[in-house]
């Protein structure tokens, strides 16, 4: 009677043309991770956010997405690495970043500008005589979203950045969803090649299968001190998608993704504790 391994080899040989290595489990790639700086989230992600991959942090406004991203950047910049924040809606607050421990000197901030012609546009000099290439601000492809995607592309291709945050948190989901999947696929390839963690802050998942991790954030409660001071907020984070989880999920786990709660303090509490 043939042994199980012999049978396996026999079956695999028979199916080799259609299904190569049909019965041999694929070797698992253990991806390098980097701590987010929040122990609860690190525990949820088995170590932190993946390096060289796309991670999406999704949720509505006031769900703790930005705080989570800043905590991650604080960890990366504390290791003497350089990071970048691509700000599609110009909403980055440098004071919050500094308070969270981000080394601002090691942070490149790209503030995408509003393409809508403002009152300053009339003051622009007249270039009609010159044939220099310059962006046509009236064109829709130079919107903030397009600028942010272009900047992300450039920074990923340049290499050397430990983390890039593509902040689409204030971009309408219907606009962000128009980003073609090929773009995310290209970003994934570039992030993998340059060992860069690309964090996408958005209201809804965008990168689909190109994202290694999708974190869904939600607000829980706000804490106050003596009903006079907002002392902090607690948030819930759950994994919406994780391409290579190290733990095998149970049946119950598949029905309900694991989630954790974490808290962030307000400025007043930090000052009081200091």
């Amino acid at each position, binding site marked *: 009677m043939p042994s199980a391994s012999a049978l396996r080899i026999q079956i695999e040989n028979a199916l080799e043309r259609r299904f190569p290595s049909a019965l041999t489990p694929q070797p698992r790639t253990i991806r390098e991770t980097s701590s987010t700086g929040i122990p609860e989230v690190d525990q949820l992600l088995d170590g932190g956010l993946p390096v060289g991959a796309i991670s999406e942090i999704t949720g509505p406004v006031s769900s703790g997405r*930005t705080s989570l991203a800043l*905590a991650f950047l604080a960890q990366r910049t*504390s290791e*003497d690495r350089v990071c970048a924040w691509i700000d599609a809606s*110009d909403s980055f607050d440098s*004071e919050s970043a500094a*308070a969270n421990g981000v080394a601002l000197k090691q942070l490149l*901030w*790209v503030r995408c500008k509003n393409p809508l012609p403002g009152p300053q546009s009339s003051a622009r000099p007249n270039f009609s005589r010159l044939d220099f290439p310059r962006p046509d601000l009236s064109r829709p492809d130079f919107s903030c979203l397009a600028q942010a995607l272009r*900047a992300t592309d450039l920074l990923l291709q340049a290499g050397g950045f430990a983390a890039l945050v593509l902040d689409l948190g204030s971009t309408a989901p219907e606009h962000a969803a128009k980003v073609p999947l090929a773009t995310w696929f290209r970003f994934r390839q570039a992030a993998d090649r340059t060992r860069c963690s690309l964090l996408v802050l958005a209201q809804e998942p965008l990168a689909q299968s190109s994202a290694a991790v999708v974190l869904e954030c939600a607000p829980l409660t706000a804490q106050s001190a003596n009903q006079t001071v907002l002392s902090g907020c607690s948030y819930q984070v759950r994994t919406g998608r994780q391409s290579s989880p190290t733990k095998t999920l149970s049946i119950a786990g598949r029905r309900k993704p694991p989630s954790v709660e974490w808290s962030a303090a307000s400025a007043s509490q930090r000052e009081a504790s200091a």
Partner: protein
Amino acid sequence: MSPNLYACAHAEEFPAQALLRMRTDLTSQPVAILDGRPPLETVCSLNRLARLKGAALGMTRLEAESIPGLHLLARSLETEAAARAVFLECAAHFSPRIESVNHETTCACVLDITGTERLFGPPELLAQRLRDALASSSLRASVAVSTNFHAACMKAATTRGITVIPLGHEAVALSRLSLAALNLPTDHAETFAIWGIRTLAELAALPESDLVARLGPQARDWRNLARGVLPHTFQPIEAGFSLQEFCAFETPVEQIDSLLFIGARMIDCLATRAATHALSLASLAVQMQLEGGHAYQRTIRPALATIDRKFLLKLLQLEIAAHPPQSAVLSLTLSAQAGQSSKVQLGLFAPQTPEPSRLDVTIARLRAIAGEDRVGSPVLEDSHRPGSFRMESFAIANSSSTYKPVESSSALPRMALRRIRPPAPVRVQLNALKPAAFRDREQSFKVSAAYGPWRTSGCWWSTEAWNREEWDVLAESSNGASVACLLVHNCTRNRWQLEAFYD
């Protein structure tokens, strides 16, 4: 003691050579240079092809224009000055003692090459290397070597290629030269012509005492010149090292491609000159003279000094594209500041950082996309004004000087703000002096909790004064979403604004 040895490098038709040095597209074309006030311009210099076409010195513009295929350019003294600097710089590689003997349309210098045989070999080899060095800078020159200063000058001015005059053979070497080589005054030149003296050999053969008796004491010098024995006190100049290139256009340039075509050639020359001194280009200043009398000036500062031509050209292109000139360009000047060649010591365990030169190009591209002042590192201002910051150019700091955050990793994260720039005006409904509801342009919010007010004010002495009340507000929007936001009441203008969301 060995006699002094001089090498004279002589570049004729220098106005044409200086202009064609930057205009590589015209090097194979007949070109004549016009000088003078319009419309009385005359040809002051021309290249060999123009001569073959029938052009000659002194032609008027009308006569020159009648020659088909002849390119006419206006003389540019700035371009010639830049080319002369390059000429002297090339010569300075062979000797520190140089005397300039420029004339109206020629560029010439004499090098004291005494004792340089062990460095550069015999005089023939040195002359060849000097000529090659000039040719690499697109300057064509003849070189003559002699123990007599004036003999070297006259031979280089009248003979093409390389000539080495052996010691004691100066008179023979100069014998066939025309008297014009002495640049005699017109009346004396006519006297010699009446006497039938046409060559230097004929002048050298005249008796000195009789010559002085008829033409004066200066005739002794002419005779000594013709014999190649006139002594000379060498007056060396300081060969300055300034990295500057200039090009004036005959017609105003409106195309960036045309500008970059010249710019590429200039960068190439600057990088080559810096490399010969074992230096790199630390910064590049771009100056343009524009139509209408305007001036344009920008400075490119790469993160590391470099001589990478493609990289510098890309930075130049992005800089001009980001800051296009207001009108057409009449002339272009590139001035570079030399710096030490960059050396980066990489560490095996050091974290990966962007490559500086590539990062420069990336940031320049980002600035072209987002705007000049919208790419960089944020720096917090030393002010109590909420949200005040300034942008600084992003540079990779050394690990030793890197700012280390005070907070430890175990500290609790802080609620981050997402700013709304500019703040959105809102209508606020108050209840017991606290916000109870507010409405922006899109939706309305019902306040569930409001913490405040936090009053701040400052700069009351200036126009940038602020006086405001901040409220941390927990609210529920009309579509059921809970938000935490920062409402600000501008006490000066009595206006409410939604300034940020906690996120």
